[in-house]
């Protein structure tokens, strides 16, 4: 029963595909997968936007959108209609073709990157051998699209935003990729399903063997999500859009549906990197504890995705934005060294796996914690203390 439910969508696809003649089966299967990805993630986008607006509202002690439909649930629909019917303004000086192409180029790679994510048992649209590499390869072209948008708008703010976006994305791509290298090293595979399979089984018979439950995995996950936040231009790394300085950066001249596409691209990017983080560190579609296998695997994946997005929203509601040079400093002087050290941590964990004396596990944890904690402290001290940054005391005159 549980497997039937788990494999429901897989079997459904097989059933539909088998109705077609043999020559057509491959393209039809692809189309079905692509359609499913688009439908699922587009609706997830709508839910996320609503959840973000509601969640931010609640964080800020206000109810959030609550006028359209019951509890404001139809708000995404209203937004969609508004975006669709708004006037599409193209600045006179804009570079028409590039201005037009940029939004599509933002959407395309993120949608492509969903195709390699294993969203459930046997639910990977295209199980590529070098899936991780594919993910980063397509993700890299988003930068070009952002630049195109900023440049083609012929607006100074847009150009500033585009420059910021490119600098930021290039800087954070390094820690993003390097933090995944530890996983690749341990799992010995670039295939995302292979990495998920590597996280099968349970520690002590109850706790899943997710990578996040190891010292290097925990550090790697945090580093990865931080870099992912920057990579998807979310607060506190939302400098390219910094609405208080350069208004909306590369989006400033976009309106109507093109703007909606950018918006969608940002959310898709957030979901894609969250999905990758789940796959690499949170066991993909695997349950966290033994005895929960009866829950369909795709529910685990999307549940974890929901949690990740909630954290993104929470962070956005709390933190102010960094400055451009601090962003770079953070990437090069903090994130990058830590990701490199994390490789050592992963190696240490890997090579101490055969320790079997009493208290081996705490000892391994201690080793990992010191290996990562000490550089963390030293680096962050340097980052803040180097500029004399810290809490202050004040004097009073009476």
């Amino acid at each position, binding site marked *: 029963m549980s497997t039937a439910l788990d494999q429901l969508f897989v079997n459904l696809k097989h059933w539909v595909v088998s109705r077609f003649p043999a020559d057509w089966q491959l393209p039809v299967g692809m189309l079905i997968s692509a359609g499913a990805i688009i439908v699922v993630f587009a609706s997830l986008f709508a839910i996320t936007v609503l959840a973000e607006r509601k969640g931010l509202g*609640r964080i800020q002690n206000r*109810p959030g959108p609550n006028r359209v439909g019951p509890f404001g649930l139809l708000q995404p629909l209203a937004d969609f209609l508004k975006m669709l019917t708004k006037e599409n303004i193209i600045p006179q000086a804009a570079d028409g073709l590039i201005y037009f192409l940029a939004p599509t180029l933002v959407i395309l790679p993120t949608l492509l990157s969903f195709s390699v994510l294993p969203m459930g048992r046997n639910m990977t649209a295209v199980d590529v051998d070098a899936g991780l590499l594919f993910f980063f390869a397509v993700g890299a072209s988003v930068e070009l699209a952002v630049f195109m948008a900023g440049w083609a708008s012929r607006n100074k703010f847009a150009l500033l935003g585009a420059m910021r976006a490119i600098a930021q994305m290039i800087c954070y791509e390094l820690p993003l990729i390097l933090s995944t290298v530890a996983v690749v090293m341990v799992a010995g595979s670039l295939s995302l399903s292979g990495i998920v399979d590597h996280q099968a089984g349970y520690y002590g018979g109850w706790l899943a063997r997710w990578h996040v439950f190891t010292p290097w995995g925990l550090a790697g996950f945090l580093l990865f999500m931080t870099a992912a936040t920057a990579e998807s231009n979310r607060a506190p790394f939302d400098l390219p859009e910094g609405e208080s300085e350069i208004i909306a950066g590369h989006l400033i001249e976009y309106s109507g549906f093109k703007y909606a596409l950018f918006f969608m691209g940002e959310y898709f990017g957030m979901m894609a990197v969250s999905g990758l983080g789940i796959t690499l560190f949170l066991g993909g579609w695997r349950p966290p504890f033994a005895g929960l296998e009866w829950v369909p695997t795709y529910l685990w994946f999307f549940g974890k995705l929901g949690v990740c997005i909630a954290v993104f929203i*929470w962070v956005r509601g*709390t*933190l102010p934005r960094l400055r451009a040079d601090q962003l770079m400093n953070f990437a090069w002087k903090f994130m990058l060294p830590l990701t490199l050290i994390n490789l050592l941590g992963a190696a240490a964990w890997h090579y101490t796996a055969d320790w079997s004396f009493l208290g081996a596990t705490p000892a391994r944890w201690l080793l990992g914690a010191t290996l990562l904690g000490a550089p*963390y402290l030293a680096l*962050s001290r340097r980052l803040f203390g180097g500029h004399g940054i810290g809490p202050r005391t004040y004097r009073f005159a009476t």
Partner: protein
Amino acid sequence: MNLPGTGIIKGMVETARNFVGSYHDPERLTTIEYPEERLTQPENARSFPMLIFDDDPVKGLRCVACKICEKECPPQCIYIVQDRDERGKPRKFPRIFDLDISVCMSCQICVEVCPFDSIKMNTEFELSTDDRFGRLLLHRDDLAKSNEYYHQIHATEAAEVDARLADEKAKAEAKAKPAAAKPASPVPTAAKAAAPAQPAAPVKSPAADKPAAKPASPAEPAAA
């Protein structure tokens, strides 16, 4: 220095507390769903001026067109024309009393300077309109509000005003007695003097909160 990152964690805890709090703590979720829910306005609340009448929306107007408010109004948003009778003699009554609420800044100075307790502040605030001249330039009959309405929106203040007017009237009568058999004063003054006595009686004829549909105004013959 604390462990780096604690400040961010502290902030995150604070926002989480507010997130949860906004679901059960009315101190945190202070939003009022406006058209459905309304706050009761405090007694002192004010929006734009109105003219108080007793009994009749036109004849009962307390305004005597003395033009003090017109003169004192800082943005000069009041325009008054005194009524005249057939022979051209001025009557203590405003033929025109226009108030441009797109200019008015609700400062309440007209209320303070009015010696006749005639102009008071309304609390009506849902005045948005797409008709700038039709609906934002209020005329005498739009401005006229009954004394009951005044009691409804500013109970304490209105009671004070009524007491004071009654007091003044009593004094005036006491003064008038020695003067004895002098002929009755002109009609509008009499109307005004008689008026304050009325509000003492709590229930009144249905003079209504809103200006009546426009009964034949005494101003009209004069204007003709």
